[in-house]
């Protein structure tokens, strides 16, 4: 089952308050997304921890209903 981009953004923002989220539907099929998440909450955390925070916000959907999400995380805009 595909997920809507809006739902992904909402979940990430709920899980990581104040985060900026940009999302692209890569294949136009509602199933392959690329997301960039920018949050000061990532500061001082490893990449693995940053991605785990996003996966945590998605509450188990990653790897399930959400098949493919190419993730880029950063603490601030480059």
């Amino acid at each position, binding site marked *: 089952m595909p997920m809507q981009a809006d739902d992904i953004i909402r979940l990430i923002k709920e899980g990581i308050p104040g985060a900026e989220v940009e999302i692209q539907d890569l294949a136009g099929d509602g199933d392959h997304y690329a997301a960039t998440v920018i949050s000061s909450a990532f500061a001082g955390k490893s*990449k*693995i921890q940053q*991605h*785990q925070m996003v996966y945590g916000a998605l509450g188990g959907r*990653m*790897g*399930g209903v959400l098949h493919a999400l*190419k993730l880029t995380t950063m603490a601030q805009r480059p």
Partner: protein
Amino acid sequence: MSEPEVFERIRDEIGKNDVLLFMKGTPVFPQCGFSAAVVDVLSQLGVKFHGINILVDPDLREGIKEFSQWPTIPQLYVKGEFVGGCDIVREMFETGELEQMFKEKGVSLADAA
């Protein structure tokens, strides 16, 4: 709560293989674009690695996600340490961090395939 039996096997594999990739398909025939991308990066660096096809082993497929607290496959382990999935590995490759990490951990990068 006792931990799943499969964790023992995972630890054993991680201990035996300096560079270990849990993946969909095999290094020669990856069955997912994300797994293929990591295989490609490792090949470009000339890193010898062991690939485990989780598609043929449902216990391992679920077990590794719990073990790593990471919801997706592929997953790369180097010298016992979880490095990341496809996005992190690719990003580290592009910035040169991955090569640096292999060197620091004493993994040979010679003999590119």
